[in-house]
Structure formats: C-alpha cells, structure tokens
C-alpha cells in the first residue's frame, strides 16, 4: 500500500517536471518570435494555377511560390498593410524571378520561355518569391490578374507570333534580356493598332457571357490585326519588337519581310471566329471566377483576449482553411480544387515538423 502511494507521488512529480520542462523550453521561443506567419489562397479555381508556401518559419525571410501551368500571362498586384512590404525574388540568381518580378510583376505562362518545369504531361512556370515581415499584424496580398494590360499585351504578342507561323515553343527568350521587358512595353505602347488590339482582345475575353459582344470584340480584334500588319509605319516597329522578343534568333530582315508579306494575304481576318470561340470557351473556363488571391500575414502569438487585433485570420478575404503555424514548423498550403471548373477550391495543409 505504501509502495503504491509512493509510486503515485513519483508519477505526479514526473508529470509536473515534464510540464515545467516543456514550459521552460517554449518560453524562449515565444519570447524570440512573438508572432507567426500564415499563408492562404483563394479563388484558385484552376488546378494548373497554384500558390504554395515553402518556408514560413523565418518571418524575416518567408518563402513562397507561384506556379502557372496555363497559357495566359498573369499580372501580380501587391497590396500590403502597412504599405511598403513587397515580395522580392527568393534567389538573386533566379533569372525568371528577377526578370518578371521587377517594375511590372508578371507570372509567365508555359511554352513561352525555356524554363518550364514539371513533366511532359504537366508543365508549369514558377516564380519563387521571398517576403520580410518586421512585426505582427502585417498583411500582404498578391492578386493575379489575367486582364491587366501588360499581361494581355504579352498574350497578344504570342498570338501574333503564332499567326505569323512561328512554331518553336519557349522561344521568347528576348523577354529575359536585361531591361528587355521594359523596352518591349515601351515599343508596344508606341503602336496604336497594337494598343487597340490589346484593348479589344481584353474586351473579347471578358465578354464571354454574351456571344454577340464576343463576336463584335473578335471582329474588332481581326480588324486591328489587319491594320497593324498593313500599316507600313507600324510594320517596322512591330517587326523590330517581335525580333527582340525572340532574342534576335532569326534575322531581322526575315522578320520584317514576313510581317510585310503576311499583310498582303489578308489571312489575319481569319482569326475572328477563333478569337470569338476562344473568348466564349476559355473566357468562361479561365476567367469567370474572381481573380486568384494569395494572402500572407503575421499573427501575434499572444492569446486573442489579451491583444485583440483587427488582423485575426478570420478577418481575411475568404480563405477556406487557415492554419496557425507555430514557430519552428514549416507549413505548406496548396490549393487543390476538386475540378478545373470548381468555383470554390479547397485547401489542404501539410505540416512538416
């Protein structure tokens, strides 16, 4: 009987010691990192477009990835609270991230630059980014928009290359030249017919709900293409722009000759019906949903009753799952919608201790 009592006392003592030890271990960590980072995604309706967190353990260097497996460019608009928190390329040596996460942040599609990843059956283009939080109650939102003018301009240039018979995939290496993207947009803005083509193409993609408006916009696109190719003053600028876009891998004279030669055939009008159907079909599939949104925020580790803050996870836009991440853990949240047309993607969380 006495032995039993002694054993019970010893067990209680051990339990107390374990609790005290764990408390002592946790205390310094909490003191060193009074907040943690959460990562969430919403409106990622396509399986081929995703965002995932790579490392949330270090709030001063949060790593995450954007992946685009579609054939459309997406612009990235950043909003932060407080202002000034901006993602940067995760690696200075990453040519793709340093090129496209600059003055005009863009997420490239597949089949444009020779850095597609994945397998032959499922490819994607990746942008690896880093973010530095300096304290709790901070939030950064990245909105991916396929209708932004820079993104649509690059879509239209790809369409023009295809129209002119360019068959090589991933050949737009000129985009990667130092300052090449800015030069390209400067040249594009000088082409009046290209600007109106971009506007009409955007309108066509957005008018997928009514086929008559899509037809009107598609007809306007075809007319813009014909005008762009037949205008002798714009021909030279367009040829120069496309030549630079291809990284000068074909002679500039060949490019100019092709542009000028193609204009005579009036085949540019043949794309009217194609653009209309593309707008009706792809517009419905790809763009019917709200723009995909990635939210990262720093949340205080203190209990909610002690420090009521306006940026609790529930106050965010519309995350489906919002895991809280303890310091010292890595959280990876990947949007995995059940089908390509599913309007509400589900989020699954995988934690690695």
């Amino acid at each position, binding site marked *: 009987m006495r032995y039993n009592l002694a054993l019970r006392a010893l067990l209680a003592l051990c339990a107390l010691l374990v609790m005290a030890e764990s408390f002592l271990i946790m205390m310094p960590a909490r003191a060193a990192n009074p907040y943690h980072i959460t990562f969430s995604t919403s409106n990622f309706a396509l399986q081929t477009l995703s965002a995932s967190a790579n490392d949330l353990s270090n709030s001063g260097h949060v790593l995450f990835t954007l992946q685009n497996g579609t*054939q459309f460019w997406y612009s990235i608009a950043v909003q932060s609270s407080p202002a000034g928190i901006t993602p940067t390329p995760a690696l200075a040596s990453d040519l793709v991230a340093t090129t496209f996460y600059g003055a005009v942040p863009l997420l490239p599609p597949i089949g444009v630059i020779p850095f597609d990843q994945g397998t032959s059956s499922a490819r994607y283009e990746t942008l690896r980014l880093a973010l530095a939080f300096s304290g709790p109650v901070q939030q950064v939102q990245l909105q991916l928009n396929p209708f932004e003018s820079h993104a649509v301009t690059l879509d239209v240039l790809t369409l023009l290359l*295809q129209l*002119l*018979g360019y*068959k090589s995939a991933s050949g737009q290496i000129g985009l990667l030249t130092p300052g090449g993207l800015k030069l390209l947009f400067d040249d594009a803005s000088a082409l009046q017919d290209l600007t109106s083509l971009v506007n009409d193409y955007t309108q066509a993609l957005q008018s997928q709900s009514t086929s008559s408006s899509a037809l009107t916009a598609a007809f306007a696109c075809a007319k813009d293409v014909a005008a762009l190719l037949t205008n002798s003053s714009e021909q030279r600028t367009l040829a120069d722009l496309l030549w630079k876009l291809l990284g*000068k891998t074909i002679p500039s004279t060949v490019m100019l000759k092709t542009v000028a030669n193609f204009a005579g055939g009036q085949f540019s009008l*043949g794309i009217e019906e194609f653009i209309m159907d593309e707008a009706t079909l792809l517009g419905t599939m790809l763009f019917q949903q709200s723009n995909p949104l990635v939210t990262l925020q720093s949340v205080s580790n203190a209990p909610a009753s002690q420090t009521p803050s306006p940026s609790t996870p529930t106050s965010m836009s519309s995350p489906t799952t919002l895991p809280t991440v303890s310091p010292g853990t890595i959280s990876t949240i990947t949007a995995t919608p059940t089908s390509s047309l599913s309007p509400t993607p589900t989020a699954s969380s995988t934690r690695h201790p």
Partner: protein
Amino acid sequence: MSRKYYHTFYLFVAVCLTSLCLCLIPLATAKAQGNNATMQILGPLQPPGFSPALLTVHVDDYVSFVNQASPPATFTITSDNGHFSSPALAPNKVWTITLSSPGAYEFHDAAAPPRMISEIIVVPDAISLLPTPEPGVGATALALIESGKTPPDTVALVTPTPTSRTIQPSSSSGSSMLIRILVVVGVALLFLALLLGVILLLRRLRRRRGSPHESEEQDAKVVSPLALPAPRQHRFARLRRRKGEDEDDLEDEDDEI
C-alpha cells in the same frame, strides 16, 4: 531471235525502272517540301486544349495531332466546316493531315459541348512564314542573356536558317505543273513498257506451245539458202551453237522466274 529477246528483256527492265523513277522522284521531292507542324492535345491537368491554340502553315504542310493529354483520354477532332474529322485518337497516338487549300480551319474536340478549340490557318507558298531558329542560335542567345548580356544583332546571322518556304507564286505553279507533266509521262511510259512486256511474254508462250525447235528450223530455213563460203559456214555454225546455249540460259532463267 533468242538474242533479240534477251536484248528486249533488258530494254524492258530499263524502261520500267526509268519510268518508275520518273514517277517516284517528283513524289518524293513533293513529300520533302512539305514542312511538319505538331499540334498537341492537352488534358485537364495541363489545362485542356490544343497547343498551340493557333497554327499557321503552308499549303500541303503536314500537321500532326499528338494526344498527350493528362490524365490519358481519347479524343476525336472535327473541323467546324466539315473539312476533316479524325478517328478516335487513343493516348499517345498521332494523326496527320495535310490541307491543300488556303483558308482558316477551325476545329474542336467532338465532345458535346466542345471544351477545346483551335485553328489552323493555311496560307499559300507565296506568303513567307517565320522560320524556326536553329537550336544553336537559341542556346547562344540564351547563354548571353544568362550571363547578363544582350544578344548582338548578328546572333542569327551566324547560322541563318530560313526554313520557311519563300517560293514565288509563278515559279511555284510552273514547277508544280512541270512535275505533274513528268509524273504523267512516267506513268504512261510505265504502262507502255508493261504492255510491251506482256506482248513479249505472250509471244514467247505461244512459241513454247509449238515445237521447241520450230524457231531453229525456221531460222535454218531462212539461212540455209544462203551460199556461204566454207570458213564463214564454220563461223556460222559456231554462232548457231552459241545462240543455242544463250537460248538455253534464257529458258533456265525463265524457269527460275
């Protein structure tokens, strides 16, 4: 007579071969002239659609549809205007078409409602299309970019690769007309040679049905009235023997055939 057949046989073979060459060379050349383009069929994970969505090719170019959908699925492709329709394309199967008339050919998968659309624009040879750069040129330009440099304007001039066909319409139509005439002549010659061959064979068979030495006797009848001097008679007898041997050889060959 036998030697005559021997020569005719060789002549017949030569004419057949020449006319065959006349027929096949233009066809082979025509096949080499058509460029190849590939249209990938992609599945829901890629996302669904054809890649490239818009393809411009020359008249008579080859367009191969490759089913690379993920997850694997079978597709049937149908053009909107009914110009072409594919059989059911199983995963990793290839279906190739050529379009011989310029125009815009829109097509879709046969699912209802269609979820994948694409278009092939077919232009005449007179319109030049953008060439595909050499891999070496692309790699050189990319290496320069990766080292922080801008490719020089002459990067493409190192190995110019005008893979697109830039044929003038007049010369193109003229040469194709000449090729067609040559093919027709070749086919006609081939038929003529075959006809001659058949006639020759029939005559040979008719002779064989009769006495095997009938022809020799006839020859002898023709030759014997000639009064030849003694040395020439010996020579003539030698020639007759050799002719007999040749004829036997020819008969052996016929038997073997």
